[in-house]
């Protein structure tokens, strides 16, 4: 579809997707309740930091960090891999392919339209965090920090979404890419700063993680939210993040195109 047609179609697509996300609010609530991992790890680290701080982190820092993790997780999550897997299995992907617009736009609009509902969930957690540990440990302090934080959240979401598309596209080659998604999730949990701040990892490991996409999905937005970096460092990290957005985008679109070709050859 040409850019003008797409621009004309997108507002309606987003509006309908938003109506859908409102219809699924009960589901979303359950999903939010099940995001317990940051809290599980928060209590562990609070117990650890009870007697003396760990590195730069005292108990309050951990509370700020993990509540920020919770909020960022809400804002950057994507479930396109799951959806693509399901639609391939059910054969309903065919209905999407009949339309004169790439299904990827449909998946993206579904995810983006969930944003307002997710902000509604994330906001109280952020407010709670401010009440518990003070604004300086919970939210950005300067305009530039806010700006970079928002860019980083967007970038984190983009990497997550595009990785989802890439893995979802694999289900067009394999019987199911669900297991692949699980492996990705494990790497995400371990490498992203979701379970512990990445600065606690030994030096060598951190260098590796700096080159992997996971930290830019979760750790970077959280660090920017809790004011862990000065401007030059933050800019450098955000630049790396967006390099990953581009790389992941190329991979996702490439895999998707190949996958659809194969889908047409083998049938759904």
């Amino acid at each position: 579809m040409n850019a003008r047609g797409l621009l004309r179609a997108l507002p309606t697509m987003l509006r309908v997707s938003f109506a859908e996300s409102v219809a699924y609010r009960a589901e979303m609530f359950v999903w939010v309740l099940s995001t317990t991992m940051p809290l599980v790890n928060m209590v562990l680290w609070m117990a650890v930091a009870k007697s003396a701080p760990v590195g730069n982190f005292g108990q309050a820092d951990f509370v700020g960090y993990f509540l920020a993790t919770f909020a960022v997780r809400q804002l950057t999550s994507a479930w396109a891999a799951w959806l693509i897997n399901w639609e391939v299995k059910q054969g309903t992907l065919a209905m999407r392919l009949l339309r004169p617009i790439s299904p990827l736009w449909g998946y993206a609009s579904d995810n983006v339209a969930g944003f307002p509902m997710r902000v509604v969930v994330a906001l109280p957690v952020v407010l709670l965090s401010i009440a518990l540990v003070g604004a300086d440990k919970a939210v950005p302090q300067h305009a530039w920090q806010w700006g970079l934080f928002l860019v980083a959240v967007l970038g984190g979401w983009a990497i997550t979404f595009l990785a989802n598309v890439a893995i979802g596209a694999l289900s067009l080659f394999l019987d199911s890419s669900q297991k692949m998604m699980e492996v990705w999730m494990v790497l995400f949990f371990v490498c992203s700063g979701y379970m512990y701040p990445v600065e606690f990892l030994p030096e060598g490991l951190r260098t590796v993680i700096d080159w992997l996409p996971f930290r830019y999905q979760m750790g970077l937005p959280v660090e920017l939210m809790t004011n862990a970096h000065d401007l030059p460092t933050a800019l450098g990290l955000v630049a790396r993040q967006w390099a990953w957005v581009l790389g992941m985008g190329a991979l996702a679109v490439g895999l998707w195109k190949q996958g659809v070709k194969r889908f047409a050859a083998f049938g759904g």
Partner: protein
Amino acid sequence: MISVHGLRKHYKVHKRPPGLKAALRSLFHRTYTSVKAVDGISFDIRPGERVGFLGPNGAGKTTTLKVLSGLLHPSEGEVRVDGHVPRLREEAFLKKIMLVMGQKQQLLWDLPPAETFELNRAIYDVPTLQYKQTLDELVGLLEIGDLIGKPTRQLSLGERMKCELAAALIHRPRVLFLDEPTIGLDVSMQATMRTFIKDYNEKYGATLILTSHYMDDVAALCPRVIVIDKGLLSYDGSLEALVQRVRPEKRVVLRLSEVVDASRLESLGKLVTHEAGTAVLQVKQDAVNATISRALSGLPVTDLTVENAPLEEVMSELFAENKARRLQAAESVPA
């Protein structure tokens, strides 16, 4: 409008043999078997025609529809729909066609159908005025005015199918593929759908290909039928001629005022059924007149009609014939 020449679609299907060793081996080295879903068929369809695809399950009907709508790439052969090559999935092509599948839906499950209509308007880039016109017309003809504001999940199957059809026609497709559109619907709903589909075809001159298990759909809608069996085209022509060819016999239905011995009826022709005052006889076409006059003169007949054999019977006979021919062919091949 549609031309298909030598279309073949072979699938490679991955076989997972039983056994742990084999399962492990299949992780690295997969064995495939080739399935010939469509094995060389050709036909042409003129603009505005209504054509029925007939064939037993697994004959290749749905595969052909999917190839025509660009969802599947043909393995061999040439396919054109209104000048487009479907597998290129050009935007202009996708805007001209629609595939409706009775078993798969495009309506958003938890939102009212009106939202899906709106979404399709945006995606197909339908001008607002035309959209309003089309929608009003669809809502009026299908009588779905009360339904399109309710969440799809609350609609009955028939109501949902009507809305599904409306959603498919928002962009006024010029070629409409219908795959089992009336499956699971009750008789009156089937009739409504048929009338509507026919009206749409006549009003907009849309070309229409239909597959259905309900012969009534085909009989009511399609002057021309294409029979596909085991991936091969086994008949292309009018429905009437097909019936003539497979089952030239007519059925004479007699209503009798008193009980008549079966042997007396059998002397008139082949007795198909005989119960409680009604007898159905099967007779050769040229013998129909003679049979009627003999029946009227010799039996207590109160009413008499002449019919064709039911379509279902005609079709099953045709498929049985094809199967017998295939078996014969297989046997005659020297080992």
